[in-house]
């Protein structure tokens, strides 16, 4: 009798666990409701003609994590945009593609994308929805074509069903693929770091962190503007161009000599996780970055005026700035169940 009760209790427990686990990963309307964090400006991407829905978001997430998007089905968006690395490429200076090919730029972290007016290090992409076409078709990344992806998805029973659920009709088009991806990446919002809570009066900073913030505001914030920690501009930050890459950055987009070797000012949120740093991933540590910034003698020609205003940073100053930068790690975002690989759930 006692054994029987134990077995029944155990079964009830397992069922309950399974039920809550299922519910844990369930995406609800509330999960896909756009909430603009306190103090954030109006976003550039407003999900216009792309109404947020749990079904489309879930489809976008599946596509993001599925290597079916690459030519030989080996690489997904998440291969290079890894959650453990704040959706950058963990410990990789340059992006990797299919067949072991190497790209020419560092994978940027993904967060607060709807507040960017352009995408990529050179700002060549003008709308979040069309950004994925780049990695998808780049020969050293996924080396695929939109037509072929559509064909593969049409032949895949799971996707045939998912598109039907998401869009209420079976058509699989590039527009739907891209809009679903934009729902998933557009909702990646990081605004709950210790810094955010400190600003909101809900957390405290150590003396070092406080000093770091003060120094940051004096020396870094003219480009890395709060609360997004970027002003969305392009600047030459003094790095001498790597002759093996000869990457002209913004200049290759506008064709203006004035823009050569300028790159988009990246956000610094979650920077603890997104190393290595700079557009070509040449620095492994935040300290390396600050060492560069405080050595104006080593700057390349045409370095931005703001860079010279940083001046010499003392070692304790660097330590404090780094202490502050580590407060930008947002575990609420990095461990958000909505962004976890659906194939692992």
């Amino acid at each position, binding site marked *: 009798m006692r054994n029987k009760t134990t077995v029944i209790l155990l079964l009830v427990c397992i069922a309950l666990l399974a039920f809550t686990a299922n519910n844990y990963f369930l995406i609800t309307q509330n999960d896909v409701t756009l909430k603009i964090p306190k103090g954030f400006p109006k976003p550039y991407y407003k999900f216009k003609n792309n109404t947020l829905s749990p079904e489309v978001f879930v489809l976008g997430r599946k596509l993001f994590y599925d290597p079916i998007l690459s030519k030989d089905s080996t690489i997904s968006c998440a291969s290079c945009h890894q959650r453990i690395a704040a959706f950058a490429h963990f410990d990789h200076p340059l992006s990797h593609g299919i067949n072991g090919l190497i790209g020419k730029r560092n994978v940027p972290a993904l967060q607060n994308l709807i507040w960017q007016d352009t995408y990529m290090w050179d700002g060549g992409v003008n*709308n979040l929805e*069309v950004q994925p076409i780049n990695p998808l078709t780049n020969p050293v990344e996924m080396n695929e074509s939109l037509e072929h992806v559509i064909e593969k998805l049409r032949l895949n029973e799971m996707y045939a069903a998912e598109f039907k659920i998401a869009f209420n009709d079976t058509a699989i088009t590039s527009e739907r693929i*891209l809009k679903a991806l934009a729902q998933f990446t557009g909702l990646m919002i990081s605004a709950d770091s210790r810094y955010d809570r400190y600003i909101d009066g809900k957390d405290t900073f150590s003396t070092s962190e406080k000093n770091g913030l003060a120094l940051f505001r004096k020396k870094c914030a003219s480009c890395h503007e709060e609360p997004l920690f970027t002003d969305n501009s392009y600047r030459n930050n003094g790095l001498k161009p790597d002759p093996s890459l000869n990457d002209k950055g913004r200049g290759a987009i506008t064709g203006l000599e004035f823009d050569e070797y300028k790159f988009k000012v990246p956000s610094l949120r979650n920077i603890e996780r997104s190393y290595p740093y700079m557009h070509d991933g040449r620095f492994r540590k935040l300290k390396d970055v600050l060492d560069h910034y405080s050595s104006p003698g080593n700057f390349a020609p045409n370095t931005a005026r703001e860079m010279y205003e940083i001046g010499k940073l003392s070692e304790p100053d660097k330590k404090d700035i780094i202490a502050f930068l580590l407060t930008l790690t947002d575990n609420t975002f990095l461990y958000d169940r909505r962004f976890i690989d659906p194939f692992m759930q």
Partner: protein
Amino acid sequence: MKIIVTTILSMATLLVAMSFTGKPTGEGKLTIAFDHYVDDKVLQFDSVLYKNELGQSFTVTKFKYYIGNICLKKTTGNKETTDYYLINEEEPATKTISVGNIPEGEYTGIEFILGVDSIHNCSGAQSGALDPVNAMFWAWNTGYIFLKLEGKSPVSKSPGNIFEFHIGGYKQPNNCIRTVSLNFERPLIISTSAIRELHLKVNVAEILKTPTSIDLSTLSSVTDFHNATTIADNYMDMFSVLSIKQ
């Protein structure tokens, strides 16, 4: 009592029905055919050798372009559309487009852009003619390719003697959107009774001349903003009115 109710109901039904069918004025339909030529010869791919102004021979292997914002001009009230069309020599069905719901009247000319306006270059994922699967889209520097002309010329120094002009760009100073404005010799009369047919001549040879004569031995590839506006200034005048059937 019952009769009154029935009468009122049937009158209301009749009124509603009338309001759906009754149009203030009649509307007609126009088809526009884009007839591709190289000077006075009908364009043929691959096999036929043509000559540019400099006497350089060439063949054509690809010819496609975007047309949009069509406006039919009338002294009182133009007919404007916001649709885009991808005209592709390879797909004959795309070479004739149709514009409906044109108010009756006498139209004196047509205006449209060759290209895609800046709003549609910044609108993200789109479908139909503007679907990026049509291979008329630059991903790395977002924007539509407005016109693709590809072919071969023995003088070209590109691999395989090919030449390729992929022209796009909606931002200054590399804006390649061109407005084409054509007047009709005699008015085009739109009425509800018949579908009118407008034939436009599209002269591929014009892409290689006026104002700039293109030397295929020195310029065989334009695939970004370099030299793009030169070609755009050339393609601007490749259209003319061939005939109007009414």
